Each structure stands twice: as C-alpha cells, then as structure tokens.
C-alpha cells in the first residue's frame, strides 16, 4: 500500500480537504466505486431489475428488492444540495487553528429512478463565498493508493461544463 497523501501533500496539490487519516476502507460491496475513482471515474450502483441508480451501496434495491446490480458510470456533474464549513479544530486530535474544510451533499446528474445524493468535498473552495446551494460542480478524483480513489468535486467553470 502506498503512503497516504498527508495534509501538506493535499495542500500542495491545491485541494482543500480535511486533515487526518480518513482514507476509505473498501469492502466487498463498495470496492468498485473506490477503484473507479482511482481511475478517474464516478460510478454508482444500478439495479438490473428496475434500472434505478442508488447510493450508498446496498445489497438490495430499495425499490424492487432485487439483489442484481452493477456499477454504472455517471457523467460526473451535479448540483450542491447543501454544505457546511467545518473547523478542523472541531475534530478530536486534529486541531489546526483557523483551518476550515467544506463538506457538501451533491445531487448527481444522469441518474434514473430517484435522485441520487452523495457526500463529498469541493476541492477548490476555500471560504464561504466559494460555495452556495444550487451551484454546479464537476468530478475531480484523487488517487490515494492502488484501487482506492476519492470522488471529489470542483466548481464548474462557466462555458466548460456540459
């Protein structure tokens, strides 16, 4: 396993991300989404029976109870449903005074069935004026190790988003 990207490395990458050891721990159900992110893609589960997308990963479809599914790629664009700014010092053992990161809930584009939301970060937002509900974002991934990446987002640039 490669060394984790530590706080300074994340900063030097130009990404605003929470500090500390918080790499995802893939399991048999969700390893595919982290592996896809390591390759620069965003995938979510899609039910083979009713065709609905769903997140977070579950064994059984909440609509039709089917357990047949596969990973389905999404375009990687979305809209911020809500967000917060977290003071790093609010977290036990990782006090970095004055350091804030954002957490968003993003409504993902390109899904069928019902809206699909996930939690993520906007890596190029550094202060309150950089984020708003309803703002468009687009996928940017961070590869942490072999088979493990994070699906993150950046602010959509007018004229470039599809």
């Amino acid at each position, binding site marked *: 396993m490669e060394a984790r990207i530590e706080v300074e490395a994340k900063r030097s990458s130009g990404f605003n991300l929470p500090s500390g050891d918080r790499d995802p721990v893939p399991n048999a159900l*969700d390893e595919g989404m982290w592996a896809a992110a390591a390759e620069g893609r965003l995938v979510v589960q899609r039910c083979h029976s009713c065709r609905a997308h769903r997140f977070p990963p579950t064994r059984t479809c909440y609509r039709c109870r089917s357990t047949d599914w596969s990973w389905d790629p999404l375009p990687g664009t979305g809209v911020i449903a*809500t967000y*917060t700014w977290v*003071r790093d010092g*609010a*977290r036990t053992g990782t006090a970095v005074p004055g350091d804030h990161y954002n*957490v968003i809930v993003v409504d993902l584009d390109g899904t069928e069935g019902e809206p699909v*939301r996930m939690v993520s970060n906007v890596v190029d937002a550094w202060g309150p004026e950089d984020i708003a509900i309803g703002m468009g974002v687009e996928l940017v991934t961070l590869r942490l190790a072999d088979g493990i990446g994070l699906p993150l987002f950046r602010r959509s640039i007018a004229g470039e988003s599809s």
Partner: protein
Amino acid sequence: MTLRDAACIVGTGESAYGKRGSLAERGELGLACEAIEAACADAGLDVGAIDGFSSYCDDRCVPTSLAPQLGIPSWRYAAMAWGGGGSSLPTAVLHAVMAVVTGAANYVTVLRSNIQGSIRLGGRMAENFRVSYTDAFGLDIPLAVYAMKARRYLDTYGVDPSALGAVAVTQRAYAGANRRAVYQQPMTMDDHDASRMVVSPLRLYDCCMESDGASAVIVTTPERARDLAKTPVVIGAMAARTNYRLNSSMVYTMSDQDLAASGQSAAAGEVFSTAGCRPEDVDVAGFYDGCSASVLWALEDWGFVERGSAGDFVLGGGTRLDGALPVNTAGGHLSEAYQQGLGQLIEGVRQLRGESVNQVAGAEIFLYSSGPGLAPGGGVLLHT
C-alpha cells in the same frame, strides 16, 4: 389494541448534572443508580419492585449490572432501542409501556446515563455509522450533519439566521431558574453571535453541550399507579418510525423536505391521531435539541407552525413562557444537560404536575419530539 392512556409515568429522577468529565469518578453505573433511586423515591416505590429496564442510544449501563447494584432481588424484562442518539427515546418509552400493559413487567424504568469523557460529541461518530461514504470526506461528527440540514433549511425557506440565536437565548433564560442546569448564566443575542463558528451555520452556542449525568422515569399501569405517592402523568400516545430511505449519514437519502427538517412528520400524525388531539391542544413541549435549529424543525414537523415560519415564531417569543408554545422549559440540551431527550421528558412530567420552576399555568398536555437520528424517531404525548 391501542396503547392510548394504557400506562403512566409515576416517578422521575435525576443525578446531579455537570460539565463533561466532572462526574466521571461516580461512573455511569453509579449515576444511573442515583437517578433510578431518586425516581423510585419520587414515586414512593421500593427500588426492589423494579422488574424491568428500558434504555436507548446504546446505553452502557446494562441491566445485568444495574439490578445487583440497586439491590433488586429479581427482575424479568429488559429492552434496548439501538442507536439513534437523537431519535430513539420514544421507542424506549414504547418498550416500557408494552411491557407493563402485557404484564411482562410491573414497574419498568426508562433510563439514560452519560459520562462524556470518552464518547465525545466532537469526536467521530460511533463505529456503527462511521462509514467511508461520510468519514472519507470529513463528515464525521453529528453536528456537521445537523449543520448541513440547518443550511438547507435556512436556504430553502429564507429563514432569518438570527432565529438560531433566539432559540439558544430563550432556553438559557429558562435554565437561569433551573438549579440543576449546567449553564445558568444569562446569554444575550450578542453573546451568541460572538461565540465561535463550529460547523457553519452553527456557532458554539447553537450546539448541544457535552455533559455528565443520568436520568430515569418509572412506568407502570394506571391500576398500580393508584397506590403510589403522586398523581400519575398519563402516556397518551407514542410513535416512532424512520424516514423514507433514511440511511447512514442522514443527509444523502432523504426527501428534500426531510433534508430541511427533523423528519418526524409521519410519526407526528400517528401520535396526534392516537391521542385524539391536535397541535393547538399542546400546552408545553420538549424538543430534542441536538442544535438550535432542531427546535425550528420540530415546530414545523409537528404542525405547530407552517413550514418555514418557525424562525419568525421563535423570534417573536412563541417558545417563551408567555408564548403560544413554551419549549424546553428546563433549558434543554443547550443549557440544562445532555441526557438525549430524557431531561425534556422529565420536565414535561414536572409541568403536568405543576412542579416546574418555569411553570406553564394550567398545563395539561405535553409533547416530546425526537431530533434527527438514524433509529426510528417520533414523539411521546403526556397528559394529566
């Protein structure tokens, strides 16, 4: 069958309350025993008569330890409403009511004991809901979940953010008269606005405290209650259920309405229909206040005010003692103590007995509401 008016609360008890870690040497088990003994004394009931235990929130005081420590010679019933710090108290009350109504037990104590030395609000979420889909992105404290819901709420309805401070200031004023309260000193809106931003839009004084303490109530049947010391408070109705597709972070599988609320609206309808009353019949309420915004959400989920108007209601004094619906009259989690809702329920009993230091004149109906949580949430309606 219905559980309407089928059981009652005959005693309440609380240990001392203190700031986080201040009561650690007494232990969670010791504090729980103090609270149960106080509740039995209040009821005029011998502790040895307790034959059932009902707890929630994964309380660490297990009945197999409590019973011998309390000197209980024989007992027969125990229930746990797993998980859900903000949500599961109504289910714990339901378990107690079902037990005494069916004869599975005669006297059940509903209890909560919490020493916040090791389990921190500001620490990461419990292992059972600390999952990669949230933790990997820094969403690892319950207050950050509340903050995202609060942001969505303020934005959706255009609510004046100063309503958050009004909740905190109102509850501190109540706590000023409550000698049990951990925080009694007066708070102004300026004090609130000067407190540091913890997880925007929530400031320090919007967040529930970390504290030590234990509390308990005794539940039995109306028949058995006749032989006890005080006039029983009747449990008119209780209900709990999860939101549609509520999942492990509380923010990414909810409906748009529930993303900007506590998500207790379905249970609210069940409680009122079972009890046979309406929101306007409620005299005083206790809402689980994981943060100040929780009070606004509960006012709307239970139909006391229209969606989006709870801010104006609170800013106009609606939850003060002279308002239309006094709320959290002992100070709540923001100012009294963090007892995961049981402190609010006990204050409800005091109100209906006429024993509160912030007494609502002639109070006959009290409503408790859960806050957001992962386990089924809802409410408990008490009446005289």
